[in-house]
């Protein structure tokens, strides 16, 4: 099995220099102007919250809602860690955008053949053994790339070594965990991080029960309806036979009364 990679983002260390944003835009050939929020030409942005800087980026969930929601399976979780988007399959339904608990995927609203756009954790680079452009550009060790297990250990080390950190790794267990992890010295809810809607349960469990019930419902419904149909048919046959009998009787009666 391939090594599960991840990215650790340290909000305490981030100096807000936007190097990650610029490196990302440069790699994808987008215009270098910084943007206020994620867009189809900004796969990561650095938002200012008070005196803190918070990177926005696809969380690369371990059990992604977008991948479970996509009707054509255009989004998949790769063994290395990134959640990948296959533009050749996409039909542009935008259900992934609705499903994502972090509202990350963006759409090319201005194009005539629009696709979904989001960070792929520089999948091609990490396959070749090179780290993503953003973490490479970070001068403050605020974004570090590595194996997920090692980064979790590193995150705990940073928390243990410095008591100003909040003793929580955001992304470790949120919605089943993700490959982007955050540590911070300010409580996460004050930085605009929402608790995952499902707690530590993966998002796809929300639909699993409704979808899992359907075979049962179909089998039961089919049986009940077939049974009802059988009863209906039987009653109709009986009614028809009785009506015919009555008609014959009437006919005989009429014949007898007219000798």
């Amino acid at each position, binding site marked *: 099995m391939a090594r599960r990679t991840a990215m650790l983002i340290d909000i305490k260390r981030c100096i807000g220099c936007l190097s990650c944003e610029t490196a990302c835009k440069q790699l994808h050939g987008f215009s270098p102007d910084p943007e206020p929020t994620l867009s189809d030409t900004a796969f990561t942005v650095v938002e200012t919250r008070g005196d803190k800087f918070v990177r926005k980026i696809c969380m690369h969930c371990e059990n992604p809602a977008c991948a*479970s929601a996509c009707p*054509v399976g255009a989004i998949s979780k790769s063994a290395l860690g990134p959640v990948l988007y296959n533009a050749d399959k*996409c039909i542009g339904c935008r259900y992934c955008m609705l499903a994502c608990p972090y509202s990350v995927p963006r759409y090319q*609203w201005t194009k005539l053949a*629009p696709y979904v756009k989001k960070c792929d954790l520089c999948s091609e680079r990490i396959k070749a053994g090179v780290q993503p452009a953003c973490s490479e550009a970070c001068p403050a060790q605020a974004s570090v790339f590595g194996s997920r297990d090692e980064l979790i250990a590193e995150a705990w080390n940073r928390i243990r070594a410095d008591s100003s950190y909040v003793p929580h790794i955001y992304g470790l267990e949120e919605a089943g965990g993700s490959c982007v992890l955050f540590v911070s010295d300010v409580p996460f809810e004050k930085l605009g991080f929402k608790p995952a809607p499902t707690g530590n349960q993966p998002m796809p469990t929300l*639909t699993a*029960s409704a979808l899992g019930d359907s075979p049962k419902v179909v089998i039961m419904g089919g049986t009940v309806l077939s049974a009802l149909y059988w009863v*209906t048919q039987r009653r109709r046959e009986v*009614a028809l036979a009785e009506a015919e009998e009555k008609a014959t009787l009437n006919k005989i009666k009429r014949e007898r009364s007219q000798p």
Partner: protein
Amino acid sequence: MIARIRSEITLWRVIVAIIFVTGIYATYLRFLVGFRASTNLSDQMPWGLWVGLGTLCGIGLSAAGFGISAAVYLLGMERYRPILRASILISFLGYMTVCVGYLYEIGLPWRFWHPIVMWNHTSVLFDVCVCIMTYTAVLTFEFAPAVIEKLPWKRFRETVLQYHHKILIGVVLAGVLLSSMHQSYLGGLYLIARGKVHPLWYSQYMHAMFYLSAIPAGLALTVMAIYLSMRSLNVRVDFGILSDCGRLIQLLLIVFAFFRVLDLAANQAWGYAFQRTSEAGYFWLEMMLLLAIPISLLSYEHVRTNPERLYWACAIVVAGFMVNRLNVSINALQAAMGTHYVPKWTELASSVLVIAAGVMAFRYAVIYLDILPKATSKPLSRWISNGGLPAQA
């Protein structure tokens, strides 16, 4: 000459002309200029009026087809046979509008066939797509005899209809199951958006709520369509049937209201209904139009037995249903997504164009095919099962 032309210009014809001109312009904007020009959709509101009105209302209001065909074919409620074809036609056209609307909605419409070959069984939307496609085929099959019997080739007609009759029950049964599945899955689409859908609408049983509300609303639309056909298209249906439909709608709405109230209580969501938010306002509008007003109106004998009053009661049900679906798909999401979405006029114009095309198709089908018993001719034996023998007996 001019006077004759002027007499041809009626209010409704002008409205139809406006709908077609604006709709075609909106269609041009959608397909040749793009989403930005034709919609107010954004990254914060990826699904808007097309999904809310076109798909959710379109499919929901087409629920009568499976309801009535189950009642007549499977449960033997022969009383409803005269309105069977009309309800199937309404469903068929409703699904057609949804299929056309689907091409507007998806960003890459030439890939509409992808869900048929690329499966993702964990996706509710995939299940919805497959169910809708299959059920549209079922509806085409159920409706086909109305067209086939008008064909001039006697031999062909008889052979086809004979085989059709043999497998009809199986197809109807499959259709009922398929409908039940995707009517509920439309609500199931929003299950994964927990945390985004306002608690007044989010529930782990959203799919059941969608199913329960679709059947009365679909029936109400059928009653409306038949009433209008009787008024303007020279058809005659025993009003007692529609009256009974009114009673049925009321009953189904009471069942829905019971579960909706219970579900809100189970989710501890009633508190949100009394906050001073726009969501609470939309919630009460929905409650009034879909539940409170129609249930109380339909409990009066003189509403159910008066065609015009019944029509308006059904119109309120349909309006309330549409408010419900738009609430789920738009109003319930705005706060969590931090956006305010007002559909662009082009979104509405293209939806209305597709719906208007469906309504016109219904009109011509009723005029040229045997959809409803004609007022002027004797009732065909087809409207009475087995030549009326059981009824006589």
